[in-house]
């Protein structure tokens, strides 16, 4: 790892001021020279592998109040960006009111990583594509001119939304939170702004191919809020890991449905591990609404969820896999 300076701001304002250097003078445009450090579970690995070599790390952990998880009187949930994945997974209110979110948190990495890794870090983590993670590969995501996965070994890459980069977004919280209609609060020099989490993530064709989200150079993700779930809404997060103990998703599904009078009245369905962003599938949601829970609806939702998929040479299996996961996730909701 390259030597760096560690800055320990004690307020968000200080942190943002430091980050402001990214928009000025010598550091301008070199996002990598200043990096925000939270749990460090992704960033430190990237630094050890020389994928990024920041000169300054802005440590957020000295800033108080960023790790709170709380429900307000209306039942909306607020999760501070520094809340650990373990604290989310173990939060009694989250477990009972938003089990999908607790399931997603529990599916991440290992207990050791979850005890240190943060919610903000999970949402802002970089791709796992093995070309991106190879120091020698100067790929699109690292300012190069080629996405090696496109013609290379792309078993783990995108079937939806790919091009020119074919990464898949690695976050497990992201599909669950998008399914829960969460909003992200970003803090910059001009104060806070809120964006639907669904709009927080960007395809390679939207914005910079070097980034996976809309965070500006001098912004920090400070909080995610989840509205109180609609009446009768129940959801689950189902993740397929090649190695159950510790793995990123080959594919995953976050799905929530409300049932009224024996029919699905509302549905939210988001796929993970198949696209450069958490992949909301409105067609699948539409296929569910108005139907009774059962094999036919679950199959139709799966078909609709992967409509338009364009597999690469080695990842066509993700199409039946995602369909199978949609089916199993909905099936588990009907049993619960």
């Amino acid at each position, binding site marked *: 790892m390259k030597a760096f300076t560690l800055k320990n701001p004690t307020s968000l304002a200080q942190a943002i001021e430091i980050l402001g250097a990214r928009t000025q003078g010598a550091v301008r445009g070199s996002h990598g020279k200043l990096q925000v450090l939270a749990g460090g579970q992704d960033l430190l690995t990237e630094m050890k592998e020389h994928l990024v070599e920041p000169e300054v790390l802005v440590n957020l952990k000295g800033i108080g109040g960023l790790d709170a998880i709380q429900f307000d009187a209306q039942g909306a949930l607020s999760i501070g960006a520094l809340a650990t994945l373990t604290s989310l997974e173990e939060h009694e209110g989250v477990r009972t009111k938003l089990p999908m979110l607790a399931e997603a948190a529990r599916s991440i990495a290992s207990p050791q990583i979850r005890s240190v890794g943060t919610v903000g870090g999970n949402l802002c983590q970089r791709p796992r594509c*093995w070309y991106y993670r190879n120091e020698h590969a100067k790929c699109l995501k690292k300012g190069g001119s080629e996405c*090696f996965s496109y013609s290379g*070994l792309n078993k783990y890459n995108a079937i939806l939304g790919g091009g020119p980069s074919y990464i898949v977004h690695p976050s497990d919280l992201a599909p669950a939170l998008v399914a829960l209609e969460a909003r992200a609060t970003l803090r910059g020099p001009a104060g806070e702004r809120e964006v639907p989490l669904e709009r927080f993530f960007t395809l390679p064709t939207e914005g910079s191919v070097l980034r996976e989200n809309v965070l500006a150079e001098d912004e920090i993700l400070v909080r995610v809020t989840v509205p109180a779930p609609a009446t009768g809404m129940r959801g689950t997060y189902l993740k397929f890991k090649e190695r159950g*103990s510790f793995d990123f998703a080959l594919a995953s599904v976050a799905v929530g449905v409300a049932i009224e009078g024996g029919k699905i009245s509302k549905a939210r369905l988001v796929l993970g591990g198949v696209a450069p962003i958490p992949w909301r599938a409105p067609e699948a949601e539409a296929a569910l609404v108005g139907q009774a829970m059962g094999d036919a609806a679950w199959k139709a939702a799966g078909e609709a969820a992967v409509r338009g998929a364009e597999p690469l040479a080695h990842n066509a299996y993700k199409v*039946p896999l995602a*369909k199978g996961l949609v089916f*199993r996730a909905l099936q588990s909701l009907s049993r619960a």
Partner: protein
Amino acid sequence: MAERKPPSAAAWPPRAALTVLNHDLPRVDGPAKVSGRARYTHDVRLPGMLYARVLCCPLPCAEVTLDLAPARKIPGVEGVIELMTGKTGYLGQPVAAVAARTPEQAEDGLRAIVLTLVPKPWAVDHAQATAEGAPKAGRNGNVSKENVAGDAKDAEAAIAGADAVVEATYTLPVQHHACLETHGVVVDYRGGDQATVYCSTQGTFTVLDDAPGELGLKSSQVTAIVDHMGGGFGSKFGIGIEGKAACMLSKQLGKPVHLMLERPDEFVTAGNRSGSRQTLRAGASRDGKLLGFVGDVTKLGGTGGGSFPGSRPYIYSFEKSCVRVRSVYTHTDSARAMRAPGHPQASFAMESLVDELAAKLAMDPLEFRKRNLKDPVYRRHLDAVAREIGWPDHPNKTAPAALADGIGVGIGFAVSTWGGGGGDGCEVDVRIDRDGSVVASVGTQDLGTGVRTYVAAIVAEEFGLPLDAVVARIGDSRLASATPSGGSTTTASLAPSVKNGAAKLRGMFAERLAKTMGVDEARLRFAGGRVADEQDSKKSLSWQQACAVLGQEGLSARGTHQSDLAANGIHGAQAAKVRVDTLTGRIEVLKMVCMQDCGLPLNRMAIRSQIQGGMVQALSYGLLEERVIDPQSGWALNANLEDYKIAHPLEIPEMVALIDDEDARGVIGLAEATVIPGHGAIANAVFNACGARIRDLPMTPDKVLAALGKVG
């Protein structure tokens, strides 16, 4: 002084009489290992010690030039050496090494080396290596001369007369040893005529083959220390290139040098299990008799030859057979021995083929196996594992299960064979002191089989003492000589020498005590921590009292190998039960069962642990493990423990390890046999569960879904 009688040859007591051996013995060094007190090579810290790293070539084949000068300017860097320049032979070939005061400075130094690579055409896989005009990875081209055994015409004729014929190609990837402790050494040479080399090795004395020459010393001037080692699986003999680099640096700088490979380097330069590609054709008669077998086998061992067992069909008896075996060379590091070299590859293909034939004949695969295995021990083992896994009540024996909600449950079988015998080469000093201390000393290493425990246990058994009354000293080349641990030969080589030494010493001690106690030597019994006249219970001494008769010099004897205490040739059978979700391709292994023979079980707990470890490693090979090198870019894509997936706790199913107590022979090593059949059994269980026949490891969900016809 009366003439001393020659010590009679030792014999294992009847099993029913054993009080320590053939019992469950927690490892004597377990607490040290789990508490972190055990010192591995990686843990060695010496005054003034430098940390070293090696630079591995990141391309499979390139013209390499090095500029080392910038590395020398890095603060803390004390030594930089070139290991090679010119055209590299394989991905990961070490080209330079750096020693510095801290590991971080060593890494900075390594990265400061200006490595200029001119890529040369390479071949990293079977397709590239066998393509027209492929760049040469082997000295004489990429395909070795064929080794042919049996007559092809006879075998083909036998197949032609068969009622069922199967032809299929089975492939297995390159697997890694994935030792928890990476390869490496700490070389302590500060000039003069003495050096100590701490090494993570499976052969204490193999260090003395390499290190002295590198240091310019004689082997008598070098001490090798292998106190504990964190896994070898066949990959750790001698000191390796990394050890040579550490010797060069230590000699040059006059300081101790700590050089343990970094994990990514371990994945490209420290050996592997050779891949395999086997096109097999076989026929069987309607009544389930195997008739003819033609095998075309390719070993993928990088720059090395790779492994494949024998020249006959693996274990099963065919009337006529012909097997052709060749190596295909690639620009990747040489395969090394890995737990039962070649056998897991041969077993997977053969057990799949046998299963495919049984299915084609609509025969019970268990009965089909038993009919074609000559050795009755296999039939006993297969019946035992079948009972334990629930085969008698399994509803679908001859065809895949009917799916319920897209989920199938299946059972599969496979068998294994191994040698496990021992030989000369281990000597053990056993010593009693007047304060009651008992020590058994031998320079051997513990590759993970619990050597300290059984060495102490054999001596404790001999003297009727509890296990903790005996100390086993190992892992030091100043102690009595021992063989390296390869081929599961250690137990059958070492245990007889321990027994022989302990029995000699008991004879000497009995003679001495007989005089003191006024008892006929033949009537002295060593049991329950006492030495007593078996006919007169009043004539009895506690162990402490008995030892007090000794002089300050104590009493000691040296044991040598006694071949009749060991045997050779083992069998095993495994069964696996799986659940397959045909919607997602998920394979969940529910249960694995193994029965293994091993002669006299020295430590039942350690044996069950070996069996379980073997099953886990086979499961991991079958479902997860595969080295990935991108043929286009030449990069190693999963050279880390995240992307190179090995089984973790949640992958481990219910496991039942059965020791075959009908085997009345002396001690035999079993560790390697246990890794041979598990993945074949799982593959067969997957077929039995859902009809997906997967002929290519690892059995990842993409392959399951493809085999089910679901990938468009």
